[in-house]
């Protein structure tokens, strides 16, 4: 066991950890030692090949197919220097006021959260793409929503020099996406923060992290040699994401009982839906995600976003098999895609636990209300595809593999609720939230509104596990805003915590 000592240790380097690292780098000027421990590798530019399976295995836990306990859904979360910011599409929305009010966290102020969010929008070069860079897949969605009278808006995105590779979810091969691996972490390192990649934190005890450094054979070698480490720190900031942060706390010897730990997990259960056009469209050239439709967030609890996925992901999201499946797959250049995100309620029974080996296990029940939302979304998306000019649509809960344009007046009989069967319908998630939720009651929350774990002034959380309920939008900007608060609190309490 090799011993190390720091003033602050940050576990995880994604939207939360990267933000805290950059903000706390100022402490290094006063001689404080700050380290980031990141499970994943620090990739070389040449590692971003754009090959689907290779990159999924490099960048995601379990290749992006982490199964929930009942195997109804797969979860995708990143493992890299930069965490999931390496693999998101860079869509940059701030938390809606109504959602904030539903969160109901005492001592959390909306205007303060938005002020901090804007700081990161600026820092990450967030802007709207010019019309010339918007491809048919996105444009057709926008025009169809307008035609149908649905509210539709353009996503601001955080790119610099985007060349439209369309491979955001496989790590941008052009270094355009402004994740923490491009912005906050390099700045933190320039100012004295140490980042240790390939470093898995196994457990915590008071002021101590027990970690293992490995050599995965990809990316830059870790700054530390492979081996077991005991790292002492005055303050520990946990930012390992909504699955791994609660799991790490559950594996640890903590002095305080935390009954809400791991609970109230939400994840925007998602469908990928496909329409086929009679002619090739530009779909995988250009940025994949330009528009969203929030028309149905309040009434039917789902959000629609444009998307364009890769062949394997597309194949697994189609229900059915055989010649008709193959025929649709053989026309990748004619496919229009929509991502549906269900707005799921935070329920205590949806939770992260650990197995006997200490590995995370996610219990998540796709309840009837969520399946209702996804079912309704399928009919809405089918209408959007046809309004966009698609000649046929694949709705996984349809009695037919493909619904033809001439059948659109029969959607209620072709797409039926009884066909919404987990296992038949492929459901996935990339927005993992909750498990260390903020609040003031230790019975129903894990941290206070500043991310400090109840009863443990040396331990903070700074990632999406803080969310008390679903974000109802893509979450990274809100994670950064909350992490900014956490860093500020640590700095404010520096004299008490760090001396």
């Amino acid at each position, binding site marked *: 066991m090799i011993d190390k000592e720091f003033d602050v240790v940050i576990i995880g380097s994604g939207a939360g950890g990267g933000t805290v690292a950059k903000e706390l780098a100022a402490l290094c000027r006063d001689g404080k030692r700050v380290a980031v421990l990141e499970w994943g590798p620090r990739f070389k530019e040449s590692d971003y090949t*754009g090959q689907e399976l290779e990159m999924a295995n490099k960048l995601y836990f379990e290749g992006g197919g982490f199964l929930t306990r009942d195997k109804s859904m797969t979860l995708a979360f990143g493992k890299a220097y930069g965490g999931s910011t390496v693999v998101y599409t860079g869509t940059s929305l701030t938390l809606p006021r109504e959602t904030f009010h539903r969160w109901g966290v005492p001592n959390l102020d909306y205007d303060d959260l938005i002020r901090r969010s804007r700081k990161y929008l600026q820092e990450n070069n967030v802007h709207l793409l010019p019309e010339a860079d918007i491809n048919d897949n996105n444009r057709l969605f926008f025009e169809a929503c307008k035609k149908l009278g649905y509210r539709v808006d353009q996503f601001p995105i955080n790119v610099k020099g985007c060349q439209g590779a369309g491979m955001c979810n496989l790590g941008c091969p052009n270094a355009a996406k402004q994740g923490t691996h491009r912005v906050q972490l390099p700045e933190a390192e320039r100012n004295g923060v140490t980042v240790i990649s390939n470093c898995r934190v196994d457990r915590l005890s008071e002021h101590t992290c027990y970690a293992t450094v490995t050599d995965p054979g990809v990316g830059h070698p870790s700054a530390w040699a492979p081996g077991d480490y005991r790292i002492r720190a005055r303050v520990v900031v946990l930012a390992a994401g909504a699955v791994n942060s609660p799991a790490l706390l559950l594996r640890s010897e903590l002095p305080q009982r935390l009954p809400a730990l791991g609970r109230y997990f939400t994840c925007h259960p998602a469908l990928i839906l496909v329409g086929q056009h009679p002619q090739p469209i530009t779909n995988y050239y250009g940025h994949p995600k330009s528009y969203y439709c929030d028309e149905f967030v309040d009434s039917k609890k789902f959000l629609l976003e444009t998307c364009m996925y890769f062949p394997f992901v597309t194949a697994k999201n189609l229900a059915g098999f055989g010649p008709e499946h193959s025929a649709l797959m053989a026309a990748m250049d004619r496919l229009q895609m929509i991502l549906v995100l269900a707005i799921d309620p935070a329920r205590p029974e949806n939770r992260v636990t650990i197995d006997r080996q200490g590995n995370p296990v996610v219990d998540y029940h796709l309840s009837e209300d969520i399946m209702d939302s996804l079912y309704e979304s399928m009919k809405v998306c089918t209408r959007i595809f046809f309004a966009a000019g698609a000649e046929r649509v694949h709705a996984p809960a349809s009695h037919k593999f493909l619904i033809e344009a001439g059948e659109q007046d029969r959607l209620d009989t072709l797409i039926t609720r009884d066909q919404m069967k987990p296992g*038949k319908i492929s459901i996935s998630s990339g927005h993992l939230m909750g498990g260390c939720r903020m609040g003031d009651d230790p019975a129903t929350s894990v941290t206070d509104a500043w991310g400090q774990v109840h009863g443990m002034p040396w331990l903070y959380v700074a990632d999406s596990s803080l969310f008390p309920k679903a974000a109802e939008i893509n979450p990274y900007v809100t994670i950064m805003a909350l992490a900014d608060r956490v860093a500020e609190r640590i700095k404010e309490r520096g004299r008490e915590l760090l001396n």
Partner: protein
Amino acid sequence: MSSVLSTEHRSFIVALARRIVPATAQLDAAGEAKFLQIIEAAIASRPVMVQRQIGLFLSVLRWLPVLRLAGALDKLPPARQDEVLRWFQEAPVPLVRKGFWGLKVLIYMGYYSRPELLAMIRYTPSRHGNQVLHAARAGAGSGSLTQDHHD
């Protein structure tokens, strides 16, 4: 890499793949080996418990038809095999549906993640996608959207 699947399960996956993605029948020996290698690597990367569940489900899928149809799945006529697979896909027991979904995912992974396939399914992305996009918009790329844009 040592095999995580028995010879019997490997053969059964190849037979099953013919029904899920008929074009797997056209794979040459090297292509089939690559297809199986991708699937085995995916299984090997999963927890041991999941590996066992996959093995168990392969056996269930293969042998369950014996009870009603007097033959292992891969010994039935193709149309009958498809009927059985559709039953698994729609099965009243969620775990059966999910198990079948998992096998389909492995087969799709083995087939659709091979770079050599991509042009055949008209998927030819480019690191410089905006150039193709702008050319298409200008009309210069008309009809060439799915031609060679590999980088």
